């Protein structure tokens, strides 16, 4: 598989500092030459197109406005293997789903830079009359054709391309007129790749962030976004937020000024609200400390990212509750799922339905906030006590450099991600759900959490083990992976 940073990158020393102009220009030429449609990218033409877009089709502006107005926007995910299917999907999400932000998910071949396979997938999809790819092969179609997606909707559009090789997809997406791009070096390299080195993953996203800064310099602000949901499997807020801080420091280092932070829902109302507040504050704290005083960092809440129930009724409850959680927690946007989630990729109808159910829940949440609850303050304080020692350690062993510190901390296991597919991540840290439904750390691995903090986690998890009459150990972590997907008969059998 390709994906390593290009050879010429070796000329630019690895650090959190901006990529030098000449090195970036050379990399960009080599990058665009990797697939024929790269030749269609013309930055001046792209700038003109972006300038012609109304501000309600620019995601950076839309996020700023929603934050100022205290609104919670809705956004689904979605991508199909042909232009026609993708046009129909995006129109339906825009018009029937009332999506505030319209997505284009790329297929997994495109994400992994296997464009020849994606090309074959288009042909197979056309022949089969249904999508054989799990997303839209944006690089194969190229920026000119892909722009038809932007022209088909009256909302801002974001690229969702879950992996660590965003360099060509980013060029094509921005040139096509997308104004948002989800993905980051630390989060995606640890969660979506197996063999890519952490350094190469960070370099790849430094390229995308540097490209975003090039648009910024031309007067076009684009929204970059960090996927703090990581492996989507019971990620406790503290681990997500550590990655948000590091990726935000790296993006700001390249010149990004509009950087969203995503947090997967724990499904505990208070823990989620505390996490969303703590995330924004802690990210700002570290950005300010690094001298980045003008980075806008709205938080997006994500519907449950773990295994979903198969029962439509149970899944519908998760969809609606996810809207409540996001709105009450004060998230600037929520990314939605649907009742089809357990089965895989939803139909456009089910996807639009998930958006509408979420929207109703947001409406009902109105201005209800939890900030004054003692439990909220306690949880938020706990998150701060978990996050700071880890981030401080990363910066310390990087001699103050977030990029170098991240690579060293991953090697040492000081920075660790639960259930990571990447071989360079120790993945010794194990989360589980406690008796109250909060996500906690069962085994810290080598992460330097303070003893008093771990004692809180252990006490809560021991309470669960006692209640469920199971041993305090790894089975708690495994059963927590499946818990939310269990049937109601298992979760809550009839009384009596």
């Amino acid at each position: 598989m390709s994906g390593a940073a290009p050879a010429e990158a070796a000329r630019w020393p690895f650090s959190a500092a901006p990529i030098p102009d000449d090195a970036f220009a050379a990399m960009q030429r080599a990058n665009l030459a990797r697939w024929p449609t790269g030749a269609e990218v013309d930055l001046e033409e792209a700038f003109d197109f972006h300038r012609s877009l109304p501000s309600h089709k620019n995601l950076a502006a839309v996020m700023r406005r929603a934050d100022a107005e205290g609104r919670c926007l809705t956004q689904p995910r979605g991508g199909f293997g042909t232009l026609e299917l993708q046009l129909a999907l995006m129109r339906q999400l825009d018009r029937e789903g009332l999506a505030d932000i319209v997505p284009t998910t790329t297929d997994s071949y495109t994400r992994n830079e296997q464009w020849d396979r994606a090309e074959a997938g288009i042909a197979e999809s056309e022949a089969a009359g249904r999508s054989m790819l799990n997303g839209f092969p944006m690089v194969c179609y190229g920026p000119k054709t892909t722009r038809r997606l932007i022209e088909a909707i009256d909302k801002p559009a974001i690229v969702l391309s879950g992996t660590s090789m965003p360099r060509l997809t980013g060029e094509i997406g921005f040139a096509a007129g997308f104004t948002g791009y989800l993905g980051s070096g630390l989060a995606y390299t640890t969660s979506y790749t197996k063999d890519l080195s952490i350094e190469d993953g960070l370099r790849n996203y430094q390229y995308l962030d540097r490209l975003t800064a090039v648009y910024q310099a031309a007067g076009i602000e684009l929204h970059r976004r960090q996927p703090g949901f990581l492996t989507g499997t019971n990620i406790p807020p503290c681990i997500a937020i550590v990655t948000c801080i590091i990726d935000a420091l790296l993006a700001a280092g390249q010149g990004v000024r509009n950087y969203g932070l995503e947090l997967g829902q724990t499904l505990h109302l208070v823990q989620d609200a505390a996490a969303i507040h703590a995330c924004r504050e802690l990210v700002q704290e570290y950005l300010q400390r690094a001298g980045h005083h003008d980075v806008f960092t709205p938080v997006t809440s994500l519907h449950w990212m773990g295994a979903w129930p198969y029962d439509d009724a149970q899944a519908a409850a998760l969809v609606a509750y996810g809207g409540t959680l996001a709105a009450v927690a004060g998230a600037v946007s929520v990314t939605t799922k649907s009742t089809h989630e357990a089965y895989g990729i939803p139909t456009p109808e089910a996807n639009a339905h998930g958006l509408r159910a979420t929207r109703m829940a947001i409406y009902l949440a109105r201005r209800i906030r939890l900030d004054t609850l003692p439990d909220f303050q306690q949880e938020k304080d706990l998150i701060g006590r978990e996050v700071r020692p880890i981030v401080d350690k990363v910066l310390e062993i990087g001699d103050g450099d977030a990029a170098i510190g991240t690579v060293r901390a991953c090697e040492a296991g000081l920075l660790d991600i639960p259930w990571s597919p990447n071989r360079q991540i120790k993945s010794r840290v194990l989360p589980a759900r406690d008796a109250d439904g909060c996500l906690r750390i069962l085994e810290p691995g080598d992460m330097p959490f303070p003893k008093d903090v771990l004692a809180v986690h252990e006490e809560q998890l021991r309470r669960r083990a006692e209640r469920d009459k199971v041993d305090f150990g790894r089975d708690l972590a495994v059963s927590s992976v499946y818990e939310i997907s269990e049937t109601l008969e298992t979760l809550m059998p009839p009384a009596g």
Partner: protein
Amino acid sequence: MTGVIGADTHIVGNRILSMALEEAGFEVIALGAITPAEDFVKAAIETDADAVMVSSLYGQGELDCRGFRDLFIEAGLDDILIYVGGNLVVGKQDWPDVERRFLAMGFDRAFPPNTRTDDVVEKLNADFAARAEGQRIAE
């Protein structure tokens, strides 16, 4: 041998399956996420594996698994037991139909989403026992 095929990164279920197989007394070679079909075959030759457990969760399993059995036959591993499981196709499709498609591709067994590890271990034990009796898989 366990692994997630193609460009798919969904490792959690496959890792839990690997843990359960080890606990049940099997020697497990875990190839992890994002494993090309050819790598399964290479590893099967190197480790003299008896069974291959393929996961796919991201919808493109139908493309990734085409010709999977043929690769083993070409390598002279005609008899190796091959299971597949997960969310194997794009979207919500009728399971018996999906199962038929994967059995026709040469998989010995296909498991729907939400299969628990106990079921897989039980089937694997039964199939190994049937093999000792000269059958391909247990009834």
